[in-house]
């Protein structure tokens, strides 16, 4: 009997495996692939550290980032003053941590604006041919401006506040996102299953929402993770130039700009926020690379 059970057991095990595979939700497969992607996990950890620090700012950096202490100017990093102090004796730890919160807020807001308007514009242009020409001409014109130049141009018009910086970055980057959504929608629109849905009498809204957009999400998600990095980087650039959020609001960019005068004696005022900025951008770039490897099947086969 023993050999028989062995021979029977084999296909049974196969069946079980198949069932197991079938019962896994596709999202689970993707998550598992991502968690096995070393660079993605590295990026996720780096980004998560920044997000957690930003979220816990009131608890881990209770000292007011704008509290002046003229007797404690230019203290180098030490256990007492983790990141040292600046030219006004302000705690650099507090300033960098609160700067992280602002960076994350601006990055997330720009990503949200892009996700909503980029999808709307891209889907409208890709799906309705009558709109394509007009929308894409304006889109191309906005993309023709060098990104930082357009951003400082918009802040010149609107003014240097956090909200205006978010709008400026939205204006600069949404056209780029719209273009990516549009190109996915154009390909999907011609797919047979979409034609079948049209033949079955589904309306435009239903086709877009149920059949096209869910399949256009992968490239959008990849784009949004890189976009978060660009938004954080460009925001820092704007505030470094003095056209972003204005002091005393601490941002990584304006802390570094203020530190320029003292870089000989107190280089930590520049190096620490710069390192924080770099870790954030590096984490998001790694995250984006990982997402692209896993979510974009065309590239996955090539790897």
């Amino acid at each position, binding site marked *: 009997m023993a050999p028989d059970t062995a021979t029977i057991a084999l296909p049974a095990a196969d069946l079980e495996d198949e069932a197991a595979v079938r019962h896994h939700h596709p999202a689970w497969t993707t998550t598992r692939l991502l968690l096995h992607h070393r660079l993605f996990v590295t990026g996720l950890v780096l980004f998560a550290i920044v997000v957690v620090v930003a979220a816990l700012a009131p608890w881990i950096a209770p000292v007011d980032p704008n509290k002046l202490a003229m007797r404690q100017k230019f203290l180098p990093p030490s256990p007492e003053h983790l990141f040292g102090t600046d030219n006004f004796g302000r705690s650099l730890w507090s300033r960098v941590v609160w700067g992280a919160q602002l960076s994350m807020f601006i990055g997330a807001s720009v990503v949200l604006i892009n996700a909503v308007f980029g999808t709307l514009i891209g889907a409208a242009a890709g799906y309705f041919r009558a709109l394509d020409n007009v929308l894409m001409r304006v889109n*191309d014109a906005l993309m023709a401006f*060098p990104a930082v*130049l357009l951003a*400082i141009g918009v802040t*010149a018009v609107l003014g240097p506040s956090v909200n205006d910086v978010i709008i400026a970055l939205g204006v600069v980057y949404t056209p780029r996102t719209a273009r990516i959504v549009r190109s996915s929608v154009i390909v999907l629109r011609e797919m047979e299953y979409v034609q079948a849905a049209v033949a079955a009498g589904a309306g435009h809204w239903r086709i877009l929402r149920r059949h096209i957009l869910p399949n256009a999400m992968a490239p959008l998600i990849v784009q949004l993770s890189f976009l978060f*990095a660009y938004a954080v980087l460009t925001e820092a650039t704007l505030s470094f*130039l003095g056209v972003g959020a204005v002091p005393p609001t601490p941002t990584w960019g304006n802390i570094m700009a203020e530190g320029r005068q003292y870089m000989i004696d107190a280089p930590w005022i520049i*190096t620490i926020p*710069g390192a924080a900025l770099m870790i954030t*951008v590096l984490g998001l770039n790694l995250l984006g690379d990982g997402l692209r490897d896993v979510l974009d099947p065309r590239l996955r086969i090539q790897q």
Partner: protein
Amino acid sequence: MAGIIIRRLGSALPILFIVSLITFAMIHLIPGDPAVVIAGLSATPEQVANIRHDLGLDQPLLTQLWRWYGGLLHGNLGRSILLGQPVVYATMLRLPVTLALSAYALVITLLIGLGSGIIAALRQNSWVDQVAMVFAMIGISLPNFYLGLLMIIFFAVQLRWLPTGGYVAFSDDPLGWLATSTMPAISLALLLAGLLARITRSTMLEVLRQDYIRTARAKGLPRRLVVVKHALTNALIPITTVVGIIVSLLISGSVVTETLFSIPGIGQLLTQAVLNRDYPMVQGGLLITTALLVLVNIGVDVCYALLDPRVRYDGA
């Protein structure tokens, strides 16, 4: 050939038109009265009225639009409030500085980016490849002003090898130009070199997998010849399309790099204009820079068509 150029110019015209319309609209999108904003808080009503008149803001919108395009066709974009010079003149005065710096940065980008990308692809998955890709990743994640500041602290302040900033024209003193431009050019180039290395590597890998490469190797051609003649020439074609993006990023990067190193180029000019609410200068500078970029992109497309016969035949 001429057909491609004409077609590309034709498709660029509506873009240039919309770009000029956006720059025209900028001053009208200022919340409140633009003349008051430009004049500043301490201005007298008379000064405000003068500015309003000088900028033509007291005219009907259509008249202003008519003047804007009339001026544009005559190469007149108004006067800079801050400098008192015509906007076109002020821009043209600083353009060579930005172009020289960009060209220097572009050379560094191509040398490092193409070189490391090709080597990484040829030694795929080796330690050379991994080191190159780690550096490329750091390159694209390192903000250019941070790199610039670190270099100033290290090479200018600590080692005193190079000046902390300033600019010497190449025509005045080539060595002085090299001394003042090297750190800015490197800080501009590193991001782009990282970007280019990644693109070059993946394009090369794609080409190296093609059947004709295997055929070339199978018929006994030496590897070196196949790599240089068959793979590289074909990989460079799609890479040319990236040059347009690289030039756009160079101009973007020059804004902060020029400000950081006190280089009197377009980037510094525009930053000063924005900080001083010199709107005619902001509008004109943006328009001229973007128009030049559109022309660069047309040039890139034409080169692409010249290099790739498939595009040429499809397009003609």
